[in-house]
């Protein structure tokens, strides 16, 4: 891990991420990531106050371990991102509220902004995605998170289409990107 990792992450974010790992990779998969991060003790974070925080450096250790072990597993990262959204925001929030809350729950040098929002399309600008930042790892976890967050907030007669572009993961700026989510009525 190279870089300046200042900031805080709310416990509820960590809990949702661990539940997502557990759902997709089961208990041993989740344990593998925490063991690689040397953060096994964080397993019990669900017993803590969800609005308390851990330091961003510790969170980044989990993300780095995830990206090391899930190398070349972009489909899994995308599915984990969807589950992460499911557990962090189980119900009752609009897409705009979800974006506001993810920004305010992870305080560091990153940002997700909605730059266009109409009935056919939502365009987001992601600045320094923190779920992928190292060279060599795609931003599929955040993309899965965004897709599922919008999907569940749409009325039932609408559906979301999103094509995952192949990223140039060797570009150090690949973690800043534009995501276009198209909305169609059945």
């Amino acid at each position, binding site marked *: 891990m190279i870089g300046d990792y200042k900031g805080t992450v709310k416990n509820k974010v960590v809990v949702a991420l661990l539940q997502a790992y557990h759902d*997709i*990779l*089961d*208990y*041993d*998969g989740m*344990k*593998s*990531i925490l063991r*690689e991060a040397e953060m096994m003790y964080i397993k019990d974070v669900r017993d803590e106050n969800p609005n308390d925080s851990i330091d961003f450096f510790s969170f980044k250790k989990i993300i780095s371990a995830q990206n*090391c*072990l*899930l*190398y*070349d*597993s*972009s*489909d*899994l990262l995308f*599915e984990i991102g969807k589950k992460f959204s499911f557990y962090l925001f189980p119900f009752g929030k609009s897409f705009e509220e979800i974006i506001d809350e993810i920004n305010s729950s992870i305080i560091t040098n990153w940002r997700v902004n909605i730059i266009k929002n109409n009935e056919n399309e939502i365009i987001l600008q992601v600045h320094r995605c923190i779920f992928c930042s190292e060279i060599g790892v795609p931003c599929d976890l955040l993309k899965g998170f965004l897709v599922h967050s919008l999907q569940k907030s749409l009325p039932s007669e609408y559906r979301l289409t999103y094509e995952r572009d192949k990223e140039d993961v060797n570009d150090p700026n690949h973690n800043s990107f534009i995501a276009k989510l198209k909305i169609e009525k059945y």
Partner: protein
Amino acid sequence: MGDDKKRQWALKLALLGDPAVGKTSLIDKYITDSFNENYQPTLGVNIVTKDIKLEEINSDIRLLLWDIAGQAKYELTRKMFFQGCSGALFVYDKTRYSTFENITSKWLEDFIKFGKPDGVYILIGNKLDLKDSIKVSSEEGKLLSQKINATEFIETSAKYGENVEMAFKKLVLHILKKSGVKFELD
């Protein structure tokens, strides 16, 4: 090799086979030189890393070893685990004939369908040490490995370590050879 520059690789390898054939024990022996007599089924996937140096091809290699649960309840999620797999060890238990039959009817089919098209695989007959209980002969193992186009057939004992390191090393060498690295393979 005319190129003096050290090369670095990351290879995702899977261990596949029925429950209790010894996949986790093979990894434990390879990584920590340990063996646990008590069987504990893997829940989902256990992922471990091992960094190796292969002086003969001037390369540093990070192995990502995916110990994938053999239980039927993981059949739906298991296919996602194969993405990006460069190679696999197909493991059967020499003392249980059904585990040998399932290599073709179940495990190979999944790996070919969901793994990399050029994936390399070795057939492993494990529990070589249980000499009085053997139900699958070495000859049958050899014939199956030819039938399924495995690059090698190796019999191992995870308990005593017989041929374990060699199995992993050969898998890596076969993958690199297939990737175009030039060297002599014994």
